[in-house]
């Protein structure tokens, strides 16, 4: 090697490690505590993504063993599809491997530089190689290989490669598929809000289909921390489809590149084939506004014209991009995930409809848990997620937090001193932003950047769970009052009568008129249960008339009606009033009497249905039930009808696809108007019952 070559290779070597060194705060390797979290994060995210793509329910194991000094043995293992032998070098050895960079769909996203960072970091801090075992289903043996990084060539160095049967360390059984990574790195294991434990706990909440476990040992092999988060659903996140970019979210550089790489011969077809949301009419309109002839060849469009087109994109009415590129967690699963991780009394979750900001589809999900073991002093726990990835740092600077802080929580029953900052109380709040393009404040990707539309969507979702909480608190205080009254008339009062009669040597008085006088109300009490044998969720509603007059009511109950559930054991009959609302007309309820409405719901699992609402129609209040608002009930019926109509139109529109642009466009316009209308009319139950 001559001098020049030597210098240049040295420079390169310096360049790669220097790149790492200089950017380690972006890459998440800036402190010993954070490095270990980042390493776990890269590895677990990869496992989850791989399993999701291969449609496998993931089992992920993380093991950290402290060694002397700051050294930690790092092991992760999954049951994913494994990595083909010849791809291992690329996956572990190349910075910025960009397979995800061009596809537009929701992914966990490349945080930092991926698993390569782990290999690099280990090598730089301890000189350790990364041992990888990869087994692909159906292959007779697994690949065992040790990887280092050639910092000169920016690629992996394989050593000791062999093929062998891979046996489970604990059971001795052969492992059919999966990936295991082991290395030694410098790091510091810590507990608390920013820890591996917290990261995995949060990950398990938003990945209810994954089973995750953690084992941490000190240098003498003693267990010092562990976690086990089994899956709560067998349902994998839905397959997300890739979509074309939407003109509203495109930058000049991207547009120019697309033009350059295009094979279309006409501008109209270029626009229609490379973007989502552009109809023939819209394409023409854009080109007219941009003063670009529709017959021109895309490859020959210059920067000035591209800029004109970019401006035109904003002035032309475009269809929204399709939403099947998003994978929300689903509110029932969030509820399950939260309940698994946090012991609480009440959970309320909301999955908003997808929405668009600057051509990027996004969707907000929010979950709130309250009461139980949660600590009542101090701020509530905020769990932030972007595309199912926990955000653990920079809470204060994050859009999700700011949206949370903008809500007046005092109105919803949380302590919110001065109406500023994070509210206080025994609650935890989850906010999940799913988007094809999550904008962060910095490369560290820990805080979501400002965006008005996203902010507003989060606010709306928060208000909805807030109303749920307020309703819950009101209900539990009513329930408490009712319980006290029952105890009073059923237990204490008879004792007072007995004792006073004994002391005075008099006969006991008749308490019936006294009880009526004390209660002077109709009470309603509902109990939700679970029939283990028959796998049926049960609901029993008791109505007591403790007034001096006979009463007549119709009782309405909310139940989880969907395509999987059926109402059973409903011996009283009654009728459906709206989706999820059933009504029973009761016979006259005489003073001092009680009646029961019972039914069951099949198609649920235990814990799915823990909270309901009872309404009534009739004169006189019922403590424990809410008088139904007929006008809002009408609105629900209307919005239901709209959704049905929308589905009909959707079906038709898919049949009409091959037809001419104009027809397609008209239907789309109708559809989008329908969608708009249904959005306005889409008042959920929890929204109107409170008001």
């Amino acid at each position: 090697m001559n001098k020049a070559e030597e210098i240049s290779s040295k420079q390169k070597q310096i360049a790669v490690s220097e790149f790492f060194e200089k950017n380690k705060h972006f890459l998440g390797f800036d402190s010993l505590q954070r490095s270990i979290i980042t390493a776990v994060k890269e590895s677990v995210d990869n496992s989850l993504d791989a399993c999701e793509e291969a449609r496998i329910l993931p089992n992920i194991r993380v093991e950290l063993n402290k060694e002397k000094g700051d050294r930690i043995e790092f092991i992760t293992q999954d049951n994913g599809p494994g990595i083909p032998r010849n791809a291992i070098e690329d996956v572990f050895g190349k910075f910025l491997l960009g397979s995800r960079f061009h596809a537009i769909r929701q992914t966990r996203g490349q945080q930092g530089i991926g698993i390569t960072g782990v290999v690099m970091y280990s090598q730089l801090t301890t000189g350790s190689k990364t041992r990888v075992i990869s087994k692909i289903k159906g292959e007779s043996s697994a690949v065992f290989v040790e990887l280092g990084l050639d910092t000169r060539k920016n690629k992996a160095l394989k050593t000791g490669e062999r093929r062998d049967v891979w046996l489970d360390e604990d059971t001795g059984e052969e492992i059919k598929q999966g990936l295991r990574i082991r290395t030694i790195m410098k790091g510091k294991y810590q507990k608390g809000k920013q820890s591996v434990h917290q990261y995995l706990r949060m990950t398990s909440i938003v990945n209810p289909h994954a089973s995750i476990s953690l084992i941490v040992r000190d240098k003498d092999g003693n267990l010092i921390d562990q976690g086990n988060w089994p899956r709560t659903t067998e349902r994998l996140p839905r397959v997300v489809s890739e979509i074309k970019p939407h003109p509203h979210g495109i930058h000049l550089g991207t547009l120019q590149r697309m033009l350059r790489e295009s094979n279309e011969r006409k501008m109209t077809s270029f626009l229609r084939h490379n973007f989502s949301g552009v109809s023939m009419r819209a394409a023409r309109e854009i080109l007219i506004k941009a003063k670009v002839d529709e017959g021109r060849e895309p490859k020959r469009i210059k920067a000035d014209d591209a800029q004109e087109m970019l401006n035109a994109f904003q002035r032309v009415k475009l269809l929204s991009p399709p939403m099947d590129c998003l994978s929300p967690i689903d509110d029932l699963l969030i509820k399950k995930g939260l309940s698994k991780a946090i012991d609480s009394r009440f959970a309320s979750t909301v999955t908003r409809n997808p929405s668009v900001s600057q051509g990027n589809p996004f969707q907000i999900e929010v979950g709130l848990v309250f009461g139980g073991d949660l600590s009542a002093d101090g701020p509530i726990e905020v769990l932030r997620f972007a595309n199912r990835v926990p955000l653990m740092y920079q809470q204060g600077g994050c859009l999700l937090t700011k949206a949370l802080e903008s809500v007046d929580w005092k109105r919803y029953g949380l302590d919110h001193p001065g109406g500023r900052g994070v509210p206080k109380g025994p609650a935890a709040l989850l906010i999940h932003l799913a988007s094809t393009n999550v904008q962060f404040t910095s490369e560290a990707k820990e805080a979501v950047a400002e965006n008005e539309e996203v902010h507003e969507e989060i606010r709306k979702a928060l208000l909805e769970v807030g109303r749920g909480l307020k309703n819950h608190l009101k209900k539990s205080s009513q329930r408490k009052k009712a319980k006290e009254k029952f105890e009073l008339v059923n237990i204490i009062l008879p004792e007072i009568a007995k004792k006073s009669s004994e002391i005075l040597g008099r006969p006991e008085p008749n308490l019936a008129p006294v009880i009526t006088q004390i209660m002077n109300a109709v009470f309603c009490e509902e109990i939700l249960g679970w029939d283990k044998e028959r796998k049926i969720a049960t609901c029993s509603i008791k109505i007591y008339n403790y007034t001096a007059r006979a009463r007549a009511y119709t009782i309405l109950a909310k139940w989880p009606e969907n395509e999987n559930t059926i109402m059973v054991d409903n011996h009283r009959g009654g009728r459906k009033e709206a989706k999820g609302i059933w009504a029973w007309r009761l016979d006259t309820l005489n003073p001092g009497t009680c009646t029961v409405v019972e039914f069951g719901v099949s198609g649920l699992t235990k814990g799915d249905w823990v909270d309901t609402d009872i309404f009534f129609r009739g004169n006189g209040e019922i403590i424990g039930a809410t008088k139904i608002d007929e006008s809002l009930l009408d609105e629900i019926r209307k919005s239901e009808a709209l959704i049905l109509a929308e589905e009909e139109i959707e079906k038709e529109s898919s049949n009409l696809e091959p037809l001419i642009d104009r027809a397609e466009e008209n239907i789309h316009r109708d559809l989008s108007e329908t969608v708009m209308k249904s959005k306005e009319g889409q008042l959920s139950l929890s929204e109107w019952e409170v008001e």
Partner: protein
Amino acid sequence: MTLRETKSKKEVIEALHGVAAEMHDKMLKGKPPAMTLPVRTKKNIQFDKKLQVYKYGKNKSTRDATALSSARVLLRSLHITEFIEEMINSGKSSTLREMYYISEGWGNGKFGTQNESNNLAEDLEIVTKCIREDFKLRPEEDGARIIGNVTFEEKNRKGEWMRINCRDDVGDSGYGVPYNVESEKLRLVDQDIDFVMAVETGGMFDRLVENGFDEEARCAIIHLKGQPARSTRRIMKRMSDEWKKPILVFADCDPWSFRIFASIAYGAIKTAHISEYLATNEAIYLGITADDILAYDLPSDDLTKSDLGALESELSDPRFATGWWKEQINLMQEIGKKAEQQSLAKYGLDFVTDTYLPEKLAALGLNY
């Protein structure tokens, strides 16, 4: 008011039955059982000009069984009634704390805290116009200690009258005042003193005892132990009434000590139903006064926010409505300072007995 007439067993039981009867009668009429009693808050305390003490006003509250918590209290009162009746019939007595533990066996009538049982015992005193001695209930609180040339006769456990001289028959800690100082238990037999000195803190009590102040100044020294117990106030009242000796109160100079004096002289909110038996209207506040802080240049602390609040509310308190008290309170607000009794030690251990007290007593015409 000197000697309270002791109620007979029958009278006490009848009075308690009245409480049960009120409840039973209500239920017979189809109404929730109830108990009527005066409102026991500062708002319903009036200064009785004739008796010169604090008494409850006319506001009555009805505790009825329309809420669970009140219903529980009613049930508890019935259990207490039954319990007291048993004690009266079997000649036993119990402490309030014992009653609290005994209530464990009362099922739904058991007490949540001892405070509840103490308050309810007081409620029953008020409603029945009996006192807790009639109910055979004893407090936990310690009675005062007394040293000086006074002689009492106390009925001991064997039922014999025991003669005790509080100078010759006691040690340094003095004579311990029993919880019941009514005439069936304690007689004031003899004395050779000029006045009674009630001292707030234990440290000052011990200082006066060590310096032989009781003999030198011909007085009985009583240790109040902070806010004085009922029996302490009652025995002072009896010494004042039966022996016609002045009661002088020697306390810290702070708003809370002023309240101690007020409860001795005019009665306390909690015991306003028996103020005429407990309050010694003739009691005199000797010191430490705000004047003293300045006159003797005593080491002092700044008044806290709550001190200032207490002073402010004392200005509207009928018990401090004299010109002298207003002057003292205003002065204290002005200088913003408070001082402890023991700050007198600044000038040596004997200063209090050699200089301070002689000077203060001389001002009252009590020379020695």
